């Protein structure tokens, strides 16, 4: 099976941010994304919308360049004030060309 190496960026953030994050991800060049509902605890503890839906967990398959762009915008627009965690890993994607 031919696969393409790509970056998988996983972002966990407070749920009120979902719409904005998704818009920013698409602007940064992501061709798609997957969102699921999550809850959690971090160093920050307090969440704005405590009883408003917890966290979202967003996954985006992107090229290295877009991955950098995404991390950059997280650092600039979200990390200073919001409860956001993000990590990156290298994965092999089937039909990977459609994300480039």
């Amino acid at each position, binding site marked *: 099976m031919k696969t393409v190496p790509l970056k998988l960026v996983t972002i966990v953030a*407070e749920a*009120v*941010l979902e719409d*904005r994050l998704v818009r920013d991800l698409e602007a940064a060049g992501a061709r798609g994304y997957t969102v699921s*509902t999550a809850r959690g605890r971090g160093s920050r503890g*307090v*969440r*704005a*919308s*405590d*009883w*408003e*839906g*917890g966290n979202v967990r967003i996954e985006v398959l992107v090229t290295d360049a877009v991955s950098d762009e995404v991390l950059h915008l997280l650092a600039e*627009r979200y990390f*200073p*004030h*919001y409860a956001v965690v993000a990590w990156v890993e290298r994965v092999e994607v089937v039909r990977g060309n459609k994300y480039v």
Partner: protein
Amino acid sequence: MDTVDLVRANLLSPMVLAFVLGVVARLVRSDLKLPEGIYAALSIYLLFAIGLKGGVSLSLTPAGEVWLPALAAVVFATIAPVWIYAVVRGVARMSVADAAALAAHYGSVSVVTFTAAIAFLDTLGVPYEGYMPALVALMEIPAIVVALMIARVQAPPAAEHTPVSWHTVLHEVLAGRGSVLLIGGLSIGLLSGAGGFAQVAPFFDAPFKGVLVFFLLEMGMVAAGRLGDLRRAGAFLVAFGILMPIAHGALGAALGWMIGLSPGGSTVLGVLAASASYIAAPVAVRIALPEANPGYYLTATLAITFPFNLAVGIPLYHAIAGLIHAW
């Protein structure tokens, strides 16, 4: 009934007791929790049902009777954030963002506190103007917008931070689900009238207070989860979370009397003035004023003001309204 009796009667209503049960459940670290979607579903139900009832009542009320209370409600909700902001900044020296956040929450209204007040009056058999739910819809938004404007003017965002645009903020407030459901329900009630409402009343009217019981159970659990923050919050926040509602409650009741509402209606206006928003304001503030500390505004509204209003405030404002009207 004197005030103490009212408080006692109120404290033993299923709604207030459900809130207490929620607090107890959290304190004994029970695994009880409403499933994720259910809380959201209940709040959609409450918001829409209130809008609907308000709309139906409006459709039955001559416009000449409504315009003055509507105007009074909007004016109050528009200027209240100014003095709240001034008090918080002046007395507690909180940051601009934190003061504006409190102004947004306390200038806006709480749908749940409102419904608890309605249930309270219904139980006592005290009549009130049918269009009161419409005032909820009118009083929800102005204070949030004004408070956010104050924050922008007082502390313009630093150049290196692209702030959230005004457009985004207004959109968040006006197209937020709270507004859409309240105003949408109101419009539907207005357009379909009493005949339309009769068709759906067995769903939106009869079970309403029962649904409220579950909602308050959950709010009790959430509020209890914030009790830990209370200690950190400090004396100012506790005092603010009790005194500000009392002042607003008296002011609202007096305003009601001035514009010719019934004692019941004045009570409701007092409760609206005294209540703090839990649905529209937290989301808007989180997005538009992320530097405001939720440890202040959520703790004050949820762990202090809401239980205070539920247990003591509602009968208190009712007693105050009674005094004013009897005077």
